[in-house]
């Protein structure tokens, strides 16, 4: 059944979008990630303009983060203080990201920027996650412990000023690396249409050693608010948020996520991360292939102004 998208100004098969929302929702429920990095490319692939695809991720990711946040909140799995510090950085990053997005769109390089950024970001994160899980798998085969906390070893960023104590996470760290990290993720999120959970979660675990049971809830809670901000910034500055598209994705996504969460509960940690790493690498490879294969059509047309 075709439905007309008022902002994208094109008809699209309703069930195709619902199905995509569900599939990505399933994967995101399984891995506890937003799934924006999968959904944005899929939307672009079926012909949604890149700007609309990215901007419409905001409400979709916000909706799925609400569901996740509520679940973790009930389990007391959110460090609100940490989340608000991350949010401060996230908002700055999102604002700058939307400005950058609008500028790139104006000079016609948005698609290229998205493609290159996806290759770099997903390539690096995918490799790190895969390597780490392979290492953990090999280690567990040998009978050793997977990840050992190295006591007494300090990193340079632990010596920075403006330290703050986060009781819930048992952290005592400088605000600077937290804010810089969340600003970078907010920036990437606004430009690429991703929540950034797949970067924030490993970063909090490996760099800041936030306990795993707190990480996902805190990250979801922070992403919820950055995505609300991204939706409003995108809507106010480039009018590319498509309400109908967002609704279809949200409905498909929340249903898919429920089943995904159940499927994910049965997966072993290392295999789980290896799968996630492989998935991220596949998307990166797809973008890389698009960048380097000679295009069949060299030309593209962008309307810049229409008199109605």
């Amino acid at each position: 059944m075709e439905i007309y998208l008022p902002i994208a100004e094109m008809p699209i098969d309703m069930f195709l979008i619902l199905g995509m929302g569900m599939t990505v929702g399933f994967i995101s429920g399984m891995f506890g990630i937003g799934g924006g990095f999968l959904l944005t490319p899929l939307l672009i692939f079926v012909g949604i303009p890149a700007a609309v695809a990215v901007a419409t991720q905001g409400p979709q990711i916000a909706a799925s983060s609400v569901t996740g946040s509520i679940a973790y909140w009930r389990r007391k799995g959110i460090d609100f203080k940490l989340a608000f510090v991350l949010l401060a950085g996230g908002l700055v990053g999102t604002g700058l990201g939307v400005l950058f997005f609008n500028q790139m769109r104006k000079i016609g390089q948005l698609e290229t920027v998205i493609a290159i950024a996806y290759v770099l970001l997903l390539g690096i994160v995918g490799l790190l996650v895969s390597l780490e899980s392979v290492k953990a798998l090999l280690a567990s085969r040998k009978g050793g412990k997977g990840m050992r906390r190295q006591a007494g070893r300090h990193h340079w960023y632990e010596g920075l000023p403006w330290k703050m104590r986060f009781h819930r996470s048992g952290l005592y760290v400088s605000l600077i690396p937290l804010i810089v990290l969340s600003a970078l993720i907010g920036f990437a999120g606004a430009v690429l249409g991703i929540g950034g959970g797949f970067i924030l979660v490993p970063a909090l675990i490996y760099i800041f050693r936030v306990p795993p049971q707190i990480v996902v809830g805190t990250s979801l809670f922070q992403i919820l608010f950055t995505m609300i901000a991204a939706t409003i910034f995108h809507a106010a500055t480039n009018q590319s948020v498509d309400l109908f598209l967002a609704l279809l994705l949200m409905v498909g996504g929340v249903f898919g996520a429920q089943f995904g969460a159940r499927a994910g509960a049965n997966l072993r940690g290392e295999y789980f991360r290896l799968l996630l790493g492989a998935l991220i690498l596949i998307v990166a490879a797809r973008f890389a292939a698009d960048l380097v294969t000679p295009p069949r059509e060299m030309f593209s047309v962008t309307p810049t102004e229409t008199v109605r």
Partner: protein
Amino acid sequence: MSAIRKAFLLAALLAPLEAAAQSLVTALSTDRVPILSNFTGERIAVFGVIQTDAGARPKDGWDVVVSVRGPRGAVTVRRKDNVGPMWLNLDARNYIAIPSFISILSNRPLELIAQAEVREDLRIGIDPLIPPQTAVRSAANDPQFRAGLQRLRSQQGLFFQSPDHVRFISPGVFQAQIDLPGIAPLGNYDVEVAVFSGGALVAKNQLGFTVIKTAAEQWVAEAAHKNSLLYGIATAMLAVLVGWLASLIFRRD
């Protein structure tokens, strides 16, 4: 079909009022194309009656060209070139007043209807309707960009030319079909009906229709553009609501 019958009736009623040697009466099946949520395109019929003095009908008959032109706007055409292993948008040309939709319908190939200079003068055909590029950035005029623009728009079904979309029902009475694709841009469309005889223009009429969004689509699009901040806040709140509802529905305790 009632719209079609009405158009015929209108044509028949108006016809005798025009007393010129060769006059043309035309009508469209509709002047308003609403985009509903299930819009996937629309077919619009053009009707025409060529009125002439008794016995003055040309022995070769008439030729009819229906030119449909959608709302015009500026476009940028970009070309990908390779930088090392990557293909990036590097070169670009700007065009202004490019019709977002062009449909040239006729009863036989345009080359057989009138000479190239005549068609160029009367702006009949896809090419004469596309103004040359604007002289910015001192970029050389490269015909490839213009050709690329035409090719892409044709692939999307936005530029269309057909020598068999005008049909004579009887001598002097003709009908044409305008096919609007689902991605037809919103706005005012001009329809020009030109009648040729022996390679020369003998009559011309202007018609028009409007493609508009209706109800929900219009409301959403207008809100997004006019109250964009409020629209953003409302969309975000809706997302929170959907997420919250989902957690109520799927709560497992």
